[in-house]
């Protein structure tokens, strides 16, 4: 097995401490990571763009501020990789699509701005499934990303480049977006921590929209504590995002060590064998996590989330419906690609036909169909009702339970090319992660053991909205036990 993962990861908090106390410069930290990228990026292809010059300038600026006695923030000198569907001012942002060819956003996404303000060094833009539509990062106009644990396997998706960048040691932190599992599933497949915050908890300003009622930005890290630190940095109210929550929580790290004594944990039976396609080794590993929490003092019980059975269908109607509307803006007029035509409509058609890849076209057509007269009630309308049932199921469970547990991905990383020609088989990868997006709840994946193939397995922790603190406590407990 051809693997490029480092023997040991250096944590973001450790780097920030060393840089802030001038034990090491931000520039030296950056150069070490650039060397890693230089060595292995050609095999992994985590990045669409490595912003070497801007990164060096930023690291030097951080070092200068520190030498002047300025407080540079909790991510001083920490290299961070940004998913290429988040706007970076003056730096190409492609969503791994040909349709945004040549586009340099005129502004930074709020999360990018906050990371810079916290002292982070942005190292580049990571590969993704085009417009975040996919579960393997094979739907990229710039070629697939490979899993650092085994280069013949996919890293998961859609934030596969971000997950792979962290797993390969290219950056201790990466940012992704999660619409149906696009942070958690690649985190599981690449053996790193991935967090989808509460919907509205992290600003979506500057995130290229896929499905606006589901999209949420979150961190990848090599430890639960690092993820919590980054979540604190990027989280909080943003007046530029109309769905941002005013009371969004952004204090998690202080309580991370509180353990799980007296917590009630529910295991979602539908995702532990109730639904077909979830492999036994993943279920077994999740059961080990259950015993771990039980030994640590939590009260663990099996629970039922009946609407989970219908989530996959509901999601693959709702997300494409929203996408078909959001992606109508790519018309060859204001930015990106234009393929000329005799009149406006022909130009629109030529541009979109040439600019979008197959998976994006599939979802646009699916969404257009689900929203069209005569089918709206049967498909989109029904899916929205399933969403309500699911929200009621969760609300009922959270009266009695603090968090819920399930696998993150139904299987370990699969081979490149294995599922890409069969969309429905690919969609099943999201079966465990979709429920949290439909209801806007936080959830995260942490690495927990590995499968027979030696590839990482992730366990998912789900929590009620705005209750990330308890989610991080549970994750931290599991992390300590698995080390």
């Amino acid at each position, binding site marked *: 097995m051809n693997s490029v993962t480092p023997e040991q990861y250096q944590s973001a908090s450790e780097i920030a401490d060393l840089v802030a106390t001038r034990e090491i410069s931000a520039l030296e930290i950056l150069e070490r990571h650039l060397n890693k990228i230089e060595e292995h990026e050609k095999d992994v292809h985590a990045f669409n763009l490595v912003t070497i010059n801007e990164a060096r300038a930023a690291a030097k600026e951080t070092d200068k501020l520190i030498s002047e006695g300025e407080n540079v923030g909790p991510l001083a000198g920490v290299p961070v990789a940004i998913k290429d569907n988040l706007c970076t001012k003056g730096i190409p942002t492609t969503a791994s699509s040909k349709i945004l060819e040549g586009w340099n956003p*005129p502004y930074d996404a709020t999360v990018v701005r906050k990371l810079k303000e916290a002292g982070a060094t942005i190292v580049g833009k990571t590969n993704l499934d085009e417009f975040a539509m996919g579960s393997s990062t094979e739907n990229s106009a710039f070629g697939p990303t490979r899993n650092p644990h085994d280069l013949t396997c996919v890293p998961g998706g859609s934030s596969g480049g971000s997950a792979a960048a962290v797993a390969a040691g290219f950056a201790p932190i990466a940012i992704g977006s999660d619409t149906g599992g696009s942070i958690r599933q690649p985190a599981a497949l690449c053996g790193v921590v991935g967090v989808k915050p509460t919907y509205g908890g992290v600003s979506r300003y500057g995130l290229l929209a896929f499905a606006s009622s589901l999209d949420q930005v979150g961190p990848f890290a090599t430890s639960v504590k690092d993820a919590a630190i980054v979540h604190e940095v990027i989280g909080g109210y943003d007046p530029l995002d109309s*769905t941002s929550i005013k009371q969004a929580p952004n204090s998690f790290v202080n309580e991370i060590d509180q353990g799980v004594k007296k917590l009630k944990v529910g295991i979602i039976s539908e995702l532990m064998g109730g639904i077909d396609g979830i492999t036994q080794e993943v279920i077994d590993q999740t059961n080990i996590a259950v015993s771990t929490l039980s030994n640590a003092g939590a009260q663990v019980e099996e629970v039922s989330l009946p609407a989970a059975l219908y989530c996959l269908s509901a999601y693959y109607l709702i997300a494409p419906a929203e996408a078909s509307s959001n992606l109508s803006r790519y018309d060859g*007029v204001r930015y*990106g690609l*234009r393929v000329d035509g005799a009149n406006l409509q022909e*130009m629109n058609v030529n541009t979109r036909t040439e600019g979008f890849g197959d998976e994006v076209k599939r979802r646009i057509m699916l969404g257009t169909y689900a929203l069209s007269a005569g089918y709206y009630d049967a498909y989109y309308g029904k*899916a929205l009702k399933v969403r309500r049932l699911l929200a009621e199921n969760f609300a009922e469970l959270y009266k009695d339970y603090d968090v819920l547990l399930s696998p993150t991905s139904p299987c370990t990383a699969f081979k490149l090319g294995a599922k890409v020609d069969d969309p429905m088989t690919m969609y099943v990868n999201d079966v465990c992660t979709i429920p949290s997006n439909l209801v806007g709840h936080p959830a995260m994946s942490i690495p927990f053991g590995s499968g027979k193939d030696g590839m990482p397995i992730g366990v998912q922790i789900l929590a009620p909205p705005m209750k990330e603190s308890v989610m991080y406590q549970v994750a931290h407990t599991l992390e300590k036990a698995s080390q």
Partner: protein
Amino acid sequence: MSDSISSDEVKHVAHLARLRLTSEELVTFTDQLRAVLDHAKDVEALELNDVEPMSHPLPIENTMRKDIPNPMLKPSDFLPQAPAVEGGRFLVPKILGEEE
């Protein structure tokens, strides 16, 4: 079980979405969309008359801000990004063809 979507419907939907499909693509996409919609028959079959649809995770109505001028992007920030510009505006091909 009747087919959930016909190739004529896929053709129509592609037109609505401003996409052009080759004849091979039409066959492939029809099969693939049909597989997804067949899977969705489980949702289609549910009796949910008494359930309120939920279109968004947060119960927000309108988000208003105070009417105070804020700095905003100038045309010179974004017009250079456009494929074609004339006189400070986006330039598009003619909207009505002669024969239409």
